C-alpha cells in the first residue's frame, strides 16, 4: 500500500538537502544523494520486515522487542552518528533523520526508543573521555546493551534545572540519591546516564553559587549498581512497545571515573544531548504520520460513500493536500535543523527546537486527520491509525514540551539568551 511516488519524492529531496547543506559534518563522512538513498532503502527493508508487521501486536501486548533492537544494532542503528572506532556508523544528523523517519513508518514506539538510545550513546561519545568511550560504547553501539536518559524528576520536568537528585562526593566515589521519573527503557537498559546535583555544602544544602543549572553533573550508572531500582511500568496512552519506569537511586555509589564531563557540566551535557534527541523525535513524528497518510491515500480510493469513492470529493483532496504539505514543510524545517547541528552552527539548538515543535504538532495533526478520514475504522486498533495517534501524542510533550520549544525560539527571536 505504499505510494510509489513517495520514494522518488524523498530521494530527490535528499539530493536537494545535500546540495543545500554544503557544510560537511565535522569528523563524519559526507553522504551523497545516492548513498542516502541506499541507506534509506536498507532501513526501509528492515522496517518493512521487522517492525511494521508487528507494530499493532507489540502495541497490544506492550512488548519491548529487545531481540529486534539487537538486530537493529547489527545494522549500525544503535549509534548512527557515533564515531566508528567504538562501533558507531559515523553518519551525519541529516542521515539520521532520514533513518528515523523510515523506522517510524514501521513502528513509532520502537523508532523513538532507538532515537533515545542513540542520544545517550552520542552523549558518551561526545562528552566522554577516550577511556570511558572504550569502556561503555562497544556494547551500546551494537545494541547488545541498551541505554536510558535520566533527567526528569517528579519535581523537575520542564524546569529541568530543578533536579533534586543529589550526588555527594565521598572519597573516590559519588553517592547518588533521588528519583528519576518517566525513564524510557528503564528496567531493561544496562546503562543509565543520570543528571544529579553536585555543589552541595557540607550540611547538605545547596551552595548558592551552584543553584539551578550550574550545579548539575552527569554520571554513567550501570544497571548492576547496588541501590538502583525501578518503579512499576507506567500505564501509558501510547508508546506501548517500550517501557517507561521511575528509576530510584538509593545511595548508589558511582566512582568518579564514571562522571561524564566535569562537575557542573551536567546541564549543558543534558541539553546538548537533547538537540539531537529532538531531531529524532521530530523525524519519528514525520515517519509515523507518513505511514498514516499513505494508509489514508489507499483508503479513500477504496471507500465509497453516496456512490462515489471518497477520493473524488474535493474536501478529501484538500485535506490530503494539506497533510502532504504539512509533512513536507516539517521535513524541510527538520533538514535545516539537522544541517545546522551537523555544521555546529551557533543557532542549531534554536533550529532543533523550532523543528521539533513544528514537526511533532504537524505529525499529530496529520495522524488525527488520517483517523478522521478513515471514519469509524480509523478508531479500530486493527487499522493501525489510532495507534499512530496515541504514539505521536507524547512527542509534543517529551524531550522538552512544545511550550518549552516556543520558549527557546521566542527568546532567540527577542535576542535574549
Amino acid at each position, binding site marked *: 500500500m505504499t505510494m510509489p511516488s513517495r520514494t522518488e519524492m524523498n530521494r530527490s529531496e535528499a539530493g536537494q538537502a545535500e546540495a543545500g547543506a554544503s557544510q560537511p559534518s565535522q569528523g563524519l*563522512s559526507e553522504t551523497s544523494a545516492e548513498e542516502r538513498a*541506499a*541507506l534509506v532503502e*536498507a532501513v526501509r527493508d*528492515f522496517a518493512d520486515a521487522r517492525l511494521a508487521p508487528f507494530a499493532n501486536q507489540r502495541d497490544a501486548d506492550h512488548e519491548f522487542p529487545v531481540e529486534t533492537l539487537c538486530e537493529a544494532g*547489527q545494522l*549500525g542503528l544503535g549509534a548512527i552518528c557515533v564515531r*566508528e572506532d567504538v562501533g558507531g*556508523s559515523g*553518519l551525519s544528523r541529516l542521515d539520521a533523520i532520514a533513518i528515523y523517519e523510515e523506522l517510524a513508518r514501521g513502528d513509532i514506539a520502537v523508532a523513538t526508543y532507538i532515537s533515545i538510545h542513540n542520544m545517550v550513546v552520542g552523549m558518551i561519545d561526545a562528552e566522554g573521555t577516550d577511556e570511558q568511550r572504550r569502556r561503555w560504547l562497544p556494547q551500546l553501539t551494537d545494541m547488545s546493551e541498551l541505554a536510558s536518559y535520566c533527567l526528569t524528576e517528579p519535581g523537575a520536568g520542564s524546569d529541568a534545572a530543578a533536579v533534586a537528585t543529589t550526588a555527594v562526593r565521598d572519597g573516590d566515589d559519588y553517592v547518588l540519591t533521588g528519583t528519576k521519573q518517566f525513564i524510557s527503557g528503564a528496567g531493561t537498559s544496562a546503562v543509565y546516564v543520570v543528571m544529579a546535583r553536585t555543589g552541595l555544602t557540607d550540611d547538605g544544602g545547596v551552595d548558592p553559587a551552584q543553584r539551578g543549572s550550574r550545579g548539575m553533573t552527569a554520571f554513567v550508572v550501570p544497571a548492576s549498581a547496588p541501590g538502583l531500582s525501578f518503579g512499576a511500568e507506567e500505564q501509558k496512552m501510547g508508546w506501548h512497545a517500550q517501557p517507561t519506569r521511575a528509576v530510584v537511586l538509593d545511595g548508589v555509589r558511582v566512582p568518579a571515573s564514571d562522571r561524564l564531563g566535569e562537575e557542573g557540566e551536567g546541564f549543558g551535557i543534558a541539553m546538548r544531548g537533547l538537540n539531537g534527541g529532538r531531531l529524532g523525535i521530530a523525524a519519528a513524528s514525520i515517519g509515523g504520520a507518513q505511514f498514516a497518510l499513505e494508509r489514508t491515500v489507499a483508503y479513500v480510493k477504496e471507500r465509497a460513500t453516496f456512490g462515489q469513492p471518497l477520493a473524488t470529493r474535493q474536501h478529501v483532496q484538500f485535506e490530503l493536500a494539506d497533510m502532504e504539505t504539512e509533512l513536507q514543510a516539517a521535513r524541510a524545517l527538520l533538514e535545516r535543523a539537522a544541517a545546522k547541528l551537523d555544521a555546529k552552527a551557533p543557532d542549531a539548538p534554536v533550529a532543533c527546537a523550532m523543528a521539533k515543535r513544528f514537526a511533532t504538532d504537524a505529525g499529530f495533526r496529520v495522524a488525527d486527520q488520517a483517523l478522521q478520514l478513515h471514519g469509524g475504522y480509523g478508531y479500530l486498533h486493527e487499522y493501525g491509525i489510532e495507534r499512530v495517534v496515541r504514539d505521536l501524542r507524547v512527542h509534543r510533550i517529551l524531550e522538552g514540551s512544545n511550550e518549552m520549544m516556543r520558549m527557546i525560539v521566542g527568546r532567540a527571536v527577542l535576542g535574549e539568551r
Partner: protein
Amino acid sequence: MKIVVLVKPVPDTYGDRVLSLETGLADRAASETVLDEITERALEAVIRHAEESAKSGAGEVEVVAMTMAPADSQSTLRKALAMGAASAVHIADERLAGADLVRTAEVLAAALRRAGADLIVAGNGSTDGSGGVMPSMLAELLELPAATRLETIEITADAVRGTRETDGGTMTVTAALPAVVSVTERMPDPRFPALKGIMGAKKKPLEVVALDDLSAELEGLGVALDETASARSIMVAATQRPAREAGEIITDDGTAGERIAAFLADRRLA
C-alpha cells in the same frame, strides 16, 4: 579462492511489472529495480562462507558480484557490495539491450573467463525472465561441471557439494572446482546491509565492462563480438496480459454440479 556470484537486477515484484509492447522488453522505468531475491540469497550463502573461512583461518575467499545489466542499475551492485562482496563487475553495453539467453550466456562466460573464478554461483531462476538455464549454459561454454538447483551448499578448497531435490528424493552432488552451481530460494535469508557497509560500498572496486573489453575472451569462446545480421531469436509479438475478470460464483441450489460441469465443458477444460 575467488567466487563469482552472478546477481541480477530485476523489476521489484512488489509493484506492477510492465512489458513495453513496442520492444517486447520489460519497462524498467515502470518499477523499482532490486536485486533478484534468489541471487541475494546466493550472495548471502557465499559471503557467510567467506566470513567463516576467514575466521577459521581456512584461507581468504574473495567474493565478486557480477551482473550484465543496463547502465542505470548500478545501485543493485552497490547493495551487493554493501552486503559484503569485495568487488563487483558490471557488464553494461547498449549493444546488449534485449540480448537473449544464448547471447547473455556468451557474454557472461567471456566476462567470467576474464575474471578467472574458482567457483561461479548463480540463482536457479529469476523473477523476471524465468529461463532457468543460464547456469547450465555457462557451464557448457566454460567447459566446467555444473551442479544445479542446490538447496544446500558446502564449499571446500577443491570442491563444492550440495543437495538437490528430485521427484523421488534428495540427491547429494559434488563437483571438483572450478565449477558452476545454481542455488534455490532455500538458501539463507539475505542479511540487511549495515549502514557502515553501505557507506563503505562506494570505496570498493566496481568495474564497468563494455563488450569491446571482452573481445579476446569472446573470440576465445568462438563467438562473435557483435550479434549483427543474424539474430538467433526475434520477438514476433508482445501483448499485455488481459485484465483479470471477476470470476463467476455458483451458489448451490441443487444444480451446481451440472453448472460447473457445463462451465468446464464450455471452455474445453473437461
